[in-house]
């Protein structure tokens, strides 16, 4: 039971966090060089975006759930299972953002699900 709770938090909060961060970065614009001052400028601008904070909070929750899962299972099991975020992304995009998910994308999502199932049952 705890396993499913942990993986649900990792996947749901992780995906939500990535979407928020991705959205925040759209508002920040490009980093133009590797110069430390430029990188600092981009990071500081990113931190002024509310979406960034929402994303960071969700990613932090996902991180603690990940630590919990890693205390119980191998990394070669835990990390591939987190690929379920692609499934969550497709359903979330369709349900909450009104995105039209193409047949081809559903096929990809199905493949990811099959892969995770194989990882789940392929105990070493």
């Amino acid at each position, binding site marked *: 039971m*705890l396993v499913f709770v942990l993986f649900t938090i990792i996947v749901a909060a992780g995906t939500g966090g990535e979407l928020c*961060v*991705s*959205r925040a*970065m*759209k*508002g*920040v*614009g*490009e*980093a*133009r*060089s*590797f110069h430390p001052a*430029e*990188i600092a400028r*981009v*990071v500081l601008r*990113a931190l002024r975006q509310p979406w960034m904070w929402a994303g960071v909070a969700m990613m932090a929750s996902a*991180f603690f759930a*990940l*630590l*919990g899962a*890693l*205390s*119980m299972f*191998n*990394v*070669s*099991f*835990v*990390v*591939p299972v987190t*690929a379920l975020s*692609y499934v969550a992304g*497709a359903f979330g995009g369709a349900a909450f*953002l*009104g*995105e*039209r998910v*193409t047949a*081809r*994308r559903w*096929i*990809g*999502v199905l*493949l*990811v*699900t*099959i*892969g*995770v*199932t*194989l*990882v*789940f*049952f*392929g*105990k*070493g």
Partner: protein
Amino acid sequence: MEPVVDKTTESKSAAHKPLQLKTYLMILVMVLAGPVGNVFLGMGMKAVSPIRFWPPAELAHSGLRVFASLPIWLGILSLITFFVAYMLVLSWADYSFVQPVSSVAYGVVAVLGWLVLGERVSALRWAGIGVICLGVFVVSRTGAQTTSALNSGNE
């Protein structure tokens, strides 16, 4: 390294420019730092387990042990490196490009788990990881955008 100034930064939506070396370099940092971070976290958490989630005093005690562990901090450092690289890459390239390329990390983490932590990865699990990467690739080949709402603020 001399900063590479990109003259076409104004029109991010006209993203038909070829990807630059810096992008590939940062993607390499991403797919290495992420798995290395996870392996360190795995190492650290195995050392302090079992974690008790209840009662709260036990959880707090476990939390203290977790954050007193060197591998955990090395893992966090690696993941911060990953995160900075990820932010930079997202500012240079589309999410729909970054997503499939970063799925290589699932393979890298399994290889590291096997080599560094001595985890036994069965043939079925390798196959599963392969199918996951294939699935991510197929997902990425679909149109990046089916709505225009997210980008409307950039125009």
